[in-house]
Structures are given as C-alpha cells and as structure tokens.
C-alpha cells in the first residue's frame, strides 16, 4: 500500500520532472524563423515591438542577425539548411544572391497577400524578392555654406565644391555604384553608358569618398563636405536634432531607389512562416511604425503617414514615379571591370 508521504514524494518528483522537461517540449513545438535585419534605430524598433508582436501572433521565435555583411554567411551555409530563412538586404545584394541560387527569384501575392497593395516598383523586374521600403538617393547639402539648393545631379560638379563634395568608394558601396550609373544617364546615353560615367567621375575630383552612408552623414554634419550623395533618410533623420544645417534635394533627373528587399531562401524549412513574416512587414500598421522611425518610404500604397513624414517621403504615385531603379543584374555582371576602372580613376 502506498503511504501518503510516498504519494506526495512521487507527486513532487513528477512535478519537478515536468517543470524541467516543459521548456524543451515547448521549444520543440515552437518554430524559429532566422532573419537578417539592420541595427541602429531600425534594429531598436524591430527588437522592441515589431518582432515580439510577430512572435506572439505566430507563436514562434525570431532569431535576428544584425551583423552585416550577411551574404558571405549565407554563401557558406548549406543550401538545404540555410543560416537564414529570410534575407533582408539591398537590391544589389539580392541580385548577387539569386545568381548563386541562395534566394528565390520571384515571390507573388499568392505567397504574400499584401503584395497586392504595393507600388509597382516593389516587385518590378529590377527586384528579386519584395521591396518593403525604399529610400531616395539624391544630394545632401549644407544650408549654411551659401549654396543654392541643388536641382540637378550636375550641381555636384560645381567647381566651388572642389574638395568639399562627397561620394562613395564605388567597389564597396551600392550608393556609389548607383551614382556611377546615374552619371551615365545625366552625362551620356543612359544608366549603362559607362564611358560617359567614367568621364564624369573623373571631373568630380577632388572628391571625398567614404565606404558607408553613416560616414557620409558625419561628414555632412561636421561640414567636412558641403554636398554629397546620400539617401533621404540619412538626412531627414536629423530633423529637429539641434537644428542641423543639412537638407536633402531630389535632382530633377530623378532619384535613385535604395530598396529594402526581403527574400526567402529556397532551402528554408519554415517557408510558410517566412512568407508570413514578409506579409507582416508589409502590413500598413507595421510599415507606418518603421517608416516614421527611420524615414523610409513604405512600399504599401495603403499606408497613411503623419503629415510631417508624408510631406517628404515617397507616398504618392507621382512621387514614386521619380524613382529610378538601377539594373543590378547588368551591373553585377560587369562589376570586376568597373571596380578596377573606378579605383584607378579615383586613386591619386
């Protein structure tokens, strides 16, 4: 016969075992979505609200990698068990990834219903995956240097700006690469007119070059450059912060698109969840929250931003029409030659 004490002891032991075992059982049932995402303010909002809400709604955990660059890590991970389920990257990197079979070449409204509400640029033939936001690449300038607001990309070549204009190390920065193509359009026959672009690049010397946009922001803020190539969010995010004398100008020839693109890896074991994540990121409320946090233009047409953001970001079909999307497939195929040529042009 089992005594009361024995029964209690057995019960306590069972309860303890259940307590210890429970998390692992729960863990086994909870799916994990592995994504890449940016750091900074974007990363703060993602980790504080956007991702926890997604985890709660879809009963999963999200493992977010913020340590850029992501593509080399995806390159060395097995294709049938990729390190990421969703790759968040700029468009040029997505094109590199699709050539190597690391991401899907097309995502449609069938997998991600909110695609039905995005502007055409978000899923155009210049995009692999889905654009969730875009920035406009134009000219940032100091308002305290007696400069008139630039209206053309050609204004960067003004002799007054010798040594006080800023650009990017083209081999390492997609804004620099996009700007090079724009020089072909402005001074030659089009975005692919590299000869005209090289000639125009030569004429921009002396120019201060940096390798990432954060550095360009610092150069503008410290007046190390008076005008430089930059994306609108890199200037607008300082609005109201100590009344910085910097502003953004959209040249009349058009602004270049700096798309934030999400794509799914073909070998992902949680594809449904990955598509659900992209769909979630395209929801108007999520788009509004992130767009206003970092001054990105939302890809979803239905998003209604507060007036302050709506006035400056690309939120209407007319404003979106000023976006120029470079052909990254074309560019990446010629990249080695371009890198060598621009390095020689800009050195010395």
């Amino acid at each position: 016969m089992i005594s009361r004490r024995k029964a209690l002891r057995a019960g306590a032991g069972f309860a303890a075992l259940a307590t210890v075992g429970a998390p692992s059982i729960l863990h086994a049932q909870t799916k994990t979505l592995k994504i890449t995402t940016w750091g900074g303010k974007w990363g703060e909002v993602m980790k504080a609200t956007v991702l926890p809400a997604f985890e709660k709604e879809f009963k999963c955990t999200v493992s977010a990698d913020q340590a850029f660059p992501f593509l080399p890590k995806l390159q060395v991970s097995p294709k049938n068990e990729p390190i990421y389920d969703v790759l968040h990257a700029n468009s040029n990197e997505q094109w590199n990834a699709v050539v190597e079979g690391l991401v899907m070449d097309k995502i449609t409204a069938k997998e991600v219903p909110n695609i039905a509400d995005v502007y055409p640029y978000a899923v155009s033939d210049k995009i692999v995956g889905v654009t969730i936001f875009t920035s406009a690449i134009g000219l940032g300038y100091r308002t305290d240097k007696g400069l008139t607001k630039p209206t053309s990309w050609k204004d960067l070549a003004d002799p007054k700006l010798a040594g006080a204009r800023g650009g990017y190390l083209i081999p390492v920065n997609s804004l620099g690469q996009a700007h090079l193509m724009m020089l072909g359009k402005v001074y030659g026959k089009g975005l692919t007119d590299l000869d005209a672009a090289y000639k125009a690049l030569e004429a921009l010397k002396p120019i201060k070059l940096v390798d990432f946009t954060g550095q360009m922001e610092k150069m503008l803020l410290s007046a190390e450059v008076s005008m430089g190539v930059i994306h609108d969010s890199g200037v607008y995010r300082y609005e109201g912060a100590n009344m910085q004398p910097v502003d953004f100008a959209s040249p009349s020839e058009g602004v270049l698109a700096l798309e934030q693109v999400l794509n799914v890896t073909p070998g992902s074991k949680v594809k449904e969840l990955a598509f659900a994540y992209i769909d979630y990121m395209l929801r108007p409320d999520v788009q509004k929250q992130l767009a206003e946090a970092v001054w990105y233009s939302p890809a979803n047409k239905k998003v209604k931003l507060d007036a302050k953001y709506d006035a400056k970001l690309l939120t209407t079909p007319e404003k979106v029409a000023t976006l120029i999307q470079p052909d990254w497939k074309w560019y990446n195929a010629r990249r080695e030659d371009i890198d060598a040529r621009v390095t020689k042009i800009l050195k010395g």
Partner: protein
Amino acid sequence: MTNTARPSPIAWLIAPAGLLFVLFFVMPFAVMTAMSFYSGNPVTNPNAFLTTRHYERFILDTAGIFHEALWSTLRIGLVTTIVSLLIGYPLAHWMARMQSRLGHALVLMAVIAPMLTGIVVRTFAWMTILQDKGVINTTLIQWGLIEKPLPLMYNEFGTIVALVHIYVPFMVLTLTGVIGRIDERLEQAARSLGAGRLRAFVEVTLPLSLPGILAGSLLVFALSISAYVTPSLMGGTNVLTLPMLIAQQVGTSFNPNFAGALGVILLLVSLAIVVAYNRILARLSGEQGMA
C-alpha cells in the same frame, strides 16, 4: 640509459596552445588556401572546379591595381615599423634605465593607456584632428598661417600617423624587456675604456638589443600590413591595401576564392620579407637564427 625520447609531462601544458593554433590558424589557413584554388565553394556548389585563375588574375593584373595595392601595403608596413622603432627605441631605453620605480610605473601606464581604447575610437580621434575641418587645419586657418587645409588625411601620411600611434606601445613594450636585461655594466666598461656615450651605445647596447628590435619590428610590421580599419578610415581613395581588397572581395564582391588567393599572396610575401629581415639582422649581430 636515458629517457630523452619521452616528452616531459610539462610539455603537455603547451597542448591547449597547440590545439588553438591548429584550430584557429592551421585549419582556417588550409581551408582558405584550398578555396583559393577553386572557382566557387566546393561544399555548396557542385559545379565548382579546380583552377589557378585567381592567382593568374593577381599576377597578370590587367586591372592595374593589385600590384600597386601589394606595394602600398608593404610600404605602409615598412614606414610604420621604422617610425615606430625610431619613436619607441629612445622611450624604451629611457624606461629600461629608469631608477625610480614610480617613474617607471607612470611611464609604463602612459605607454599602455592608449591600448585601453579601441582601434576604431583612436582612428576616429585622429580623424577629428587631421581632417580638413579638423583641429589642426581649423586652427592654422584661423591663425591665418594657411589658406587651404593641409592634406593631413585621406592619404598614406594620415594612415601612417594613426598606425604609428596605435602600434608604438607594442614596440616599446617589446624593446623595454630586452634592453632592461642588458647588463648596464657592459656599457660602463666600454666608457671606462675610452668609448664616448654614442660609441658605447652603438657598439655595445644597440647590438645587444637587436633581438628586441627584431621582435618589435616583426610584431609592428605584421600588425601594420594586416591593418584594415585604420587605412580604410584614414586613407580615403588614395590608399588601397591588400586587407582592404580582401574585405571588398568577401564583403561586397562575394568572391571568397579570390580573397583567399590574396590572403595567401600577402602571407607568402610577408614571410619572404620576415625571413630576409631575420637573416640580415642575424648577420649584423653575428648570431644565427634569432627568431
């Protein structure tokens, strides 16, 4: 009967270090070398094939930038090493001969203090000093001494200034240990036999400190030629080194195979220089195989 064939039990103490060396140097280097002879990643890409094209690309250098990048890397490494030695040796000598313990401790702290700050932070500090709108140029322009900013940054000069600042402590600490072990009485004996201060230093102290010069120089040279952050931030477009090219190939061109070939080339060239340097210094000091 001797038991010299059996390793001492103490020898096992180096096993963790050996294991670390194999795991974090030999194996990655072997993988990198193997990758440099493939067209792609053979693990994930079944179509990857063996090739020497990455080495051919470097050797033929049709782009006209790779040889210049190698030379630039070695030039920056050599100049940084020489300047660090010229700054570090007198300081190390002074420290080693200092009688006051407190004084020695204070100077040692002054030498080590910059190492407590990260390289990126120190490089950004140099940027605020040397850039066109930096402390030096702004002050000189305000005083009316110059009209246009001096080219202190975005070139090899700025890169070397920042690298020397970062690596001088390595030179000083290495030299101090060696000079401190030189018997001061040897120098005193030379002087009592009629040698002047300079001759006693050149003929006694300097040759005896050559192992320290060799070790310190190799350390600074190795660190300088592999530096990435400082040349990237300080050099602008005028400086392109092999580590910068390697980072480009991995991080933005997504060509780890060519990056591997560049890594192998940098190591082989550096090894050749180190061996030559070792032999020259060994001959100068009349010893063999100091390192």
